[in-house]
C-alpha cells in the first residue's frame, strides 16, 4: 500500500530551499566570509550594496552573514522543539488511544486542559521556570506544542485501530505489541511525519517570537527573531535590518509548509 510517488516540482523547490539553509547550518563559512558577531563599528548602518548585499547593522556587522549564521540558531532549535512535541505527544496520545476508556478519558482531559492554556503563554512560563536561552526556549516551544500533537495522534491511532483490517488482525490473534508494530506504526508514520513537518514550520515561528520578545538567545547571537526585534527600532533609517531576517524566516517557514503540504496530499491521494 506504500506506493512510491515521485516528488512534485513543489517539493523539489522546497527541498532545494531547505538544502541551502542546511548548508548554512553545516558550513556557514562557504556562504560568507565575515564574522557574525564582531563588526567594524565604523561601517555601521550601511545600505545594501556590493560589499554588503543585505547591508550592515548598528554595529557594522554584515546582515547577510548574520542571517547565514542565524540559521544555525533557529533551525536546529526548532527541530529540537518539534521532536520534543512529537515524542511527548505521541507518547501521551498513543497511550490514550490504546488504553482503557477510563485512562483515555483522563489523558484526554489533561490534553484539553493544556490546549486551553494559550500556547505562547505556556511557552513563556516554561522559559521563565527553566531559565532563558536557546535550548530552554526550544523545549518550552516543544512542550507548548505537545497537547496539539497528542490530540491528533490520539484520534489518528483510534481511527486506525477501528479500521476493519486491523480489527481483523487483532481478532486473528496478533498480539498488542505486534498490532502496534505491524499495523499502527506504519500507517501512522506518514501522516505524523507530515504533521511534524508542518509543526516544524510553526516551531520556527514560535521560537523566533520568543527571541523577538527577548526570551531566547542573548545578544550578540544572530538569532533571526532577535535580529528582527533589534532591527525594528531602526526601521525608519535602516529598513534592511528587519526586512531580510524576516524574509529568511518567511522563506524557510513557507518551504517547510509546502513540503508538509505535499507530503499530506500524497496521503490524501491514496484511496
Amino acid at each position, binding site marked *: 500500500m506504500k506506493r512510491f510517488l515521485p516528488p512534485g516540482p513543489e517539493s523539489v523547490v522546497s527541498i532545494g530551499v531547505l538544502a541551502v539553509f542546511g548548508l548554512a547550518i553545516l558550513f556557514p563559512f562557504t556562504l560568507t566570509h565575515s564574522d557574525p*558577531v*564582531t*563588526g567594524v*563599528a*565604523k561601517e*555601521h*548602518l550601511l545600505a545594501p550594496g556590493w560589499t554588503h548585499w543585505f547591508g550592515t547593522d*548598528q*554595529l*557594522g556587522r554584515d546582515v547577510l552573514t548574520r542571517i547565514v549564521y542565524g540559521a544555525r540558531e533557529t533551525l536546529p532549535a526548532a527541530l529540537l522543539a518539534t521532536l520534543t512535541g512529537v515524542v511527548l505527544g505521541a507518547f501521551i496520545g498513543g497511550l490514550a488511544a490504546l488504553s482503557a476508556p477510563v485512562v483515555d478519558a483522563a489523558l484526554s482531559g489533561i490534553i484539553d486542559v493544556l490546549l486551553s492554556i494559550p500556547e505562547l503563554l505556556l511557552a513563556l512560563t516554561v522559559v*521563565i521556570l527553566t*531559565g*532563558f536561552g536557546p535550548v530552554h526556549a526550544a523545549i518550552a516551544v516543544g512542550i507548548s506544542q505537545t497537547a496539539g500533537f497528542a490530540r491528533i495522534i490520539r484520534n489518528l491511532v483510534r481511527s486506525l485501530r477501528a479500521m476493519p483490517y486491523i480489527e481483523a488482525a487483532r481478532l486473528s490473534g496478533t498480539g498488542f505489541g505486534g498490532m502496534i508494530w505491524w499495523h499502527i506504526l506504519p500507517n501512522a508514520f506518514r501522516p505524523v511525519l507530515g504533521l511534524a513537518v508542518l509543526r516544524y514550520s510553526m516551531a520556527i515561528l514560535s521560537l523566533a517570537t520568543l527571541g523577538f520578545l*527577548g*526570551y531566547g538567545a*542573548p*545578544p*550578540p547571537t544572530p538569532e533571526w527573531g532577535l535580529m528582527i526585534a*533589534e532591527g*525594528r*527600532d*531602526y*526601521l*525608519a*533609517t*535602516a529598513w534592511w535590518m528587519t526586512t531580510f531576517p524576516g524574509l529568511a524566516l518567511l522563506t524557510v517557514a513557507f518551504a517547510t509548509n509546502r513540503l508538509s503540504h505535499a507530503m499530506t496530499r500524497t496521503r490524501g491521494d491514496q484511496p
Partner: protein
Amino acid sequence: MPVPAASPLRSLPAGLFALICALSMPGAEGHSQNRTITYLDPQEHTNLYPPAGGFYPNGGILSQITDRLTWQDPTTLEIRPWLATDWSMNEDDTEYTFHIRPGVTFSDGSPLDARAVAQNYQTYGKGNPALHFPVSEAISNFDRAEVIDPLTVRFHFTHPAPGFLQATSVLGSGIVSPGTLQRSFDELGTATNIIGSGPFVVSADIPGKEVDLSARKDYNWGPENRPARAKTDQIKILVVPEDSIRVGALLAGQADIIRQVEAYDEEQIRHAGYSLHAPSTRGVNTGIAFRPDNPLVADIRVRKALLHGTDRQEIVTVLYSENYPLARSVLSSKAAGFVDLSEKLKFDPVLAGQLLDSAGWRRGENGLRYKDGHPLRLGIHISLPHPQNKTMLELVAQQWRRLGVELDIMSGSAAGVLLDNLDPQRTPLTVSEVGRADPDVLKSEFFPKNRDALLQKGGQSNKVQHFQDETLNAMLLDIASRTDRAERLKQVVAVQEYLIDKAYDIPLFEEPQVYATSPNLTGLGFEAVGRPVFQNVELNRP
C-alpha cells in the same frame, strides 16, 4: 438551501476599502489653538507615591500635578522659593524651618498648610509600614516634623542633613494632600488618586494606556520662571513602547511631544524640521561598575585594563550623538562638584594588554585570555531604561574581545535579573547611572545601604563574601553629612578621583533624556534632572 449569489461576496474588498477610507478621515491633520496636546511616553507609570518619582514615566506625571517646597534652577542649580517663601536652618543642619506660601490649595480644595507639609515629610522621611509606604531615598537622617504655626513647619534630624534643602526640590518630595497619604500604598497606582497642588490635575487614568491632564484655572503659585496657570487646557499622555511608532507618529502628525528619541532617529527628526531637546540628567554618568567581590575583577590591574581597553570615544561616535557627551568623570559635567578626570580615562589598548599580562591573564589559542584554565569571561545584564543599552554592551563586548576578554551579555526575567544583579559571582559588572542634581547622588549610587552598585559586604546583597571598602564608605558618609558646602564639594572631587583610581567604574557618557517636539509647539520646559514640565507648552499656528 440556496446561498446568495457571488456579488455581495465579491464586493466585500471594495466595501472594506471604503470603510478604511471613511475611518481615515478624522485622522487627518487639523491643528487648532486649543487642541489637546499629545505626549508619547515609552513606558507606563507605576506607583505614583512621590518618592517613587525617579522612574521617568512617574516623574513625567508627578512633575505636572505636584509642587515642591523649593525649586532648583536647572541652569544655576541654585535652590529658589516655591511653595516655601523662605527658610532657615540651624548651625549643624539638624533643624530646618520653612515658611509656607499662603493661599495654596490642593486640587480637591483642601488647604496646603504646615500640617499637610509636615504629614508629607513625616511619611517620606519615616515611611508608613501600616499603609506600605517606603522611606524616600532623597531624605536622610530624618527624625520628625513639627508644626510651628499654620504656615510654618520645622523638620528635625538625628544627624546633620546638609543635602536636605536640595532634597525638598526633587520630584520625590512633591507635596500631596493629606487624604492621598491616608490611602494605602497600592491605591496610589491609580493616577486619579494623587491629589496635588500642581498646574495640572489628572482627569483620567486608563491603566497601561493613557493619563489625561487638565489645567487648574486658579493656579498661580508656580516658581519664578512659570508662576501662572498652564497655557494649554488638556494634555494627553499616551504609552507607546515602540520606538519606531513614537517617531513615526510624531512625524505623521499624530503626536506633539515624544520622549526617548534614540540617537539614530535624531537625524531624520531634525531633517523633517522638528525640534530635539536633550536635558541632562546630571547625576552619575552611564557607565559600567565593577563588583570586586568577584575574584575575576578583584585585581585592580584587571579593572584598570578594562577601563583603558574601552574605546569610549568610539561608543559615543558610533552609537550616540552630540547630545551624549563623552563622560569625563563618574559624575556628569553639569553636576555640582564635577572634576575633569579625562587624563585618567584614556583609551590605551597597549597598556590594557600589559596590565592583563601582568595580572596573569595569558592569551589562549582562540584569542581569549586564560588563567589557570579559566577564561576571562564577565557577565552583565542589559539595563533596559538606558538608551541603546543592549547595542552599547554589544559594542563594548566587541572592543573587549580584541583585548581577549569576553563580555557575556545576559538577559532574563525581571526577577532573575534582580537576583543575578545581587550576586557578584554572576554579575561581576553592572550598568550604573543615577539622575539627581545633588552631590548626595554619589552616596545614592555607591553606598552599601543605598543602591550599592559595587555590592559590598553588609549592603543590599547577602551573596557578598568579603568585599568592603571602608575608605570609600567613610568618604561617602562624609559627603552626606558635611555642612560646609565648599568642604562638601571638595570631598565629592575626592570620591570621584578615588573611584577612578581604584577603577571601580568605567564612566561612558553623560546621559540625556532626549525629547522631540513638533515644529509649532513651544514652551516645553524641564526640571533639574530632565523631567518634562508642560506648564508653558502651547501649540501655535504653523
